[in-house]
């Protein structure tokens, strides 16, 4: 509709049409802080640079709800959060400061376990139980999909255990990369097979 603006009116108002990036950034930061203070920032997110590419981190008021690799599509991950959690989503780094710092330390070999509140609402039922078990696999160790299935009380649910790992909403922090095939080969991974190998190599060093 801006295209139909009569040229003269556009000229008249042209001083107002100049983009103001500084004001936009200032107002966005104010909105994120005010929304969090009022308890209406249902999902806060940011991205961080890691050796495995830019990771999207998202948290509800309960805790970390999503970690997404570049190949998973950050926009797709945000769209899914809007659909399944709430569309009240803002790029608001403050809530993610703790997990961002811990991930930096992890990639720098200075951290072996994550201590952040989690919100695992995107995984229900059996998948949720699998994720709870994965958190007990120690740094540098691995288990097979069959062992994971057995540990959750469903030894025949090997394929379902694989699906639970593949759909882990918070990879790295919940270490699904520590689950490998019975023959020792890495198997599939949300961040791609290369990312899985990198994490296993990192933890073996």
């Amino acid at each position, binding site marked *: *509709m*801006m295209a139909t*603006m009569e040229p*003269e*009116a*556009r000229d*008249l*108002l*042209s*001083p*107002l*049409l*100049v*983009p*103001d990036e500084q*004001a*936009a950034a*200032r*107002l*966005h930061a*104010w*909105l994120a802080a*005010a*929304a969090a203070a*009022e308890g*209406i*920032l249902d*999902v806060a*997110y940011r991205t961080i640079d890691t050796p495995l590419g830019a990771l999207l981190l998202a948290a509800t008021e309960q805790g970390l709800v999503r970690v997404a690799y570049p190949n998973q599509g950050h926009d797709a991950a*945000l*769209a899914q*959060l*809007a*659909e399944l959690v*709430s*569309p*009240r*989503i*803002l*790029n608001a780094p403050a809530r993610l400061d703790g997990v961002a710092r811990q991930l930096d330390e992890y990639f720098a070999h200075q951290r072996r376990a994550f201590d952040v509140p989690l919100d695992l609402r995107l995984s229900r039922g059996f998948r949720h139980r699998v994720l709870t078990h994965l958190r007990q696999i120690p740094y540098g160790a691995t288990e097979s999909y069959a062992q994971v299935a057995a540990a959750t009380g469903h030894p025949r649910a090997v394929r379902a255990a694989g699906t639970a790992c593949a759909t882990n909403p918070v990879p790295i922090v919940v270490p699904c990369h520590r689950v490998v095939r019975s023959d020792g080969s890495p198997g599939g991974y949300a961040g791609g097979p290369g990312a899985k190998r990198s994490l296993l190599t990192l933890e073996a060093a």
Partner: protein
Amino acid sequence: MRPFEQIVADYGPMVLRVCRAVVGPDEAEDAWSETFLAALKAYPRLDEGANVEAWLVTIAHRKAIDATRAAARRPVAAGPLPERAASAGRPEDWDGDLWAALAALPAKQRAAVAYHYLAGLPYAQIAAITGGSTDAARRAAADGIKTLRATYLARTREGEGR
């Protein structure tokens, strides 16, 4: 439903332009902030097919009325405001002559100009927001532009001639 971040990115600059034109440089950022905080609060209940521009401008319109009423209740500052330098239409100085010219318009004309020319809303939509008929909204915008042409353009040309 799109993440609200997308709404801020897509419409934030438009709403800021509208706020600047309607309440002026000093109140604009407060009006923008209150508009987007209220919008975020109500966002999950917005209809999927809703016209987001019209929805945001409707909220901004209410916030602008609130801001104007609050300003009217505040004690008047002593003495006249210092006069700003003539800007000769340089964009970075929009809040000099252009705001002076917009501020001199009747509120309905200022709103109609901003909502049509800065927000891109059709006159029927503007009438629904400001009250009155579609024709009245169209006339208000036309009269506003006519007055701006006379006051603002005359002033900037004068500034260039100096």
